[in-house]
């Protein structure tokens, strides 16, 4: 009997015996399992994230951050130093779903937010402290549409390793979208207080702004599903924004892995100093 005939026989015998019982078992076991977020919240989040991806064609890495929502205040900052009136730590609250705007958002113009991810990586390496390295990096995304990996623009993610251990990072340059829903979400994401979904909790949220008015935003520390992370969202005067996230876990997203370090590889001040650097806004298409 040939190998294929053997495979067919073994497969057909076992399939005849177990296919239906396994199918029933899966149905019964999962019958009461429901999506944690309600359909309205899911659809709203998908529309906001989808509009961003549709407009900027950065599906893979950007979609990973689509569900995050945050909120803010304001603080003078100077290069190398930040004044920081502390905002009270927030409690986890229910997120209000974002209303879905019209389906056809206009394409934003090309700009520094389209910086190719390999260039972002070279820039990041020059800005990191001497004792922190990029040890894992993702500069491509795959939309699952059969086109294969594409070079990302305006997005970079991976793992940083500092003296105390590794932690995931994500750096996003978001295109401007003033006046539409996406722009409103980015604006809310750059302010304190910071609303968090479900079990996520805000540890600190501090408003920041540059004296010349070029950048406004927030710097915060959150704890979500066992992962502690520092993040900042800074909106520039052209409406585009810089988002930088560093965690104490190497998992792609909060909660995916146990903490791999006692604290994220960068302190909050370091996260902010890196994100405000004008080099991120220097690239021209």
């Amino acid at each position: 009997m040939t190998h294929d005939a053997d495979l067919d026989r073994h497969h057909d015998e076992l399939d005849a015996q177990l296919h239906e019982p396994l199918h029933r078992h899966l149905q019964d076991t999962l019958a009461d399992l429901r999506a944690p977020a309600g359909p309205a919240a899911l659809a709203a989040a998908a529309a906001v994230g989808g509009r961003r991806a549709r407009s900027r064609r950065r599906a893979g890495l950007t979609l990973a951050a689509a569900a995050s929502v945050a909120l803010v205040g304001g603080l003078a900052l100077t290069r190398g130093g930040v004044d920081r009136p502390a905002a009270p730590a927030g409690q986890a609250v229910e997120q209000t779903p974002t209303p879905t705007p019209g389906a056809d958002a206009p394409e934003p113009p090309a700009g520094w937010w389209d910086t190719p991810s390999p260039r972002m990586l070279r820039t990041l390496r020059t800005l990191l402290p001497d004792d922190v390295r990029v040890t894992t990096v993702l500069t491509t995304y795959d939309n699952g549409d059969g086109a294969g990996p594409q070079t990302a623009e305006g997005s970079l993610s991976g793992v940083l390793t500092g003296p105390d251990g590794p932690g995931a990072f994500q750096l996003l340059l978001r295109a401007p979208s003033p006046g539409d829903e996406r722009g409103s979400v980015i604006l809310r994401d750059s302010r304190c207080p910071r609303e968090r979904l479900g079990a996520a909790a805000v540890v600190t949220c501090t408003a920041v702004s540059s004296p010349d008015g070029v950048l406004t935003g927030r710097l915060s520390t959150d704890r979500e599903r066992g992962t502690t992370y520092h993040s900042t969202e800074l909106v520039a005067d052209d409406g585009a924004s810089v988002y930088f996230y560093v965690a104490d876990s190497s998992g792609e997203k909060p909660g995916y892995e146990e903490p791999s370090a006692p604290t994220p590889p960068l302190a909050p001040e370091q996260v902010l100093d890196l994100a405000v650097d004008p080099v991120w806004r220097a690239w021209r298409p």
Partner: protein
Amino acid sequence: MGGRGPDADFTDFVAARADRLYRSAYLLTTSAPAAEDLLQTTLTKAYVAWGRVRAADDPVAYVHGILTKTFLSERRRRSSRDLTLAEPPEPWHPGDARRPPDADPAERLALAAALAELSPLDRAVVVLRFWEDLSVARTATHLGLSEAAVKNRSLRALRSLRGLLTDAPDGTHHATPRSTR
């Protein structure tokens, strides 16, 4: 689909299919947080491609295909076995008419633990063959595999998962939880 506009259609689709998609995501990822994220990513991609979804012969299958492809393309995901075992059971919804009388949250954890032993592609075969009940040929088409490869993976999966199933004296198959670690 209705003619009320794409966003309304999309919202209706999500309302009708979210739970089913979430269950598929749970089987693939074996982790509730990862399933939630996979579901949201899938729905976002479906929104981007909504014109194609609406025009497809089978919009539901199209979106389930996005979910499976997205799962397989995320290559930096590590085994979720430990995370699954650390999670508390999913809450039961009192009065849920769909809940079978003998459903047990521990069974779900046992199922997730058993699936976590399989490779991502083997899990995808399980979801398509035994959850969505597709044929070998359709599963092969969805995953870009030969039919022989699907049979091979199905065989492996059945041998691995049959410990979840036991025969009752009357011939009825009942599930028993495997020991978890």
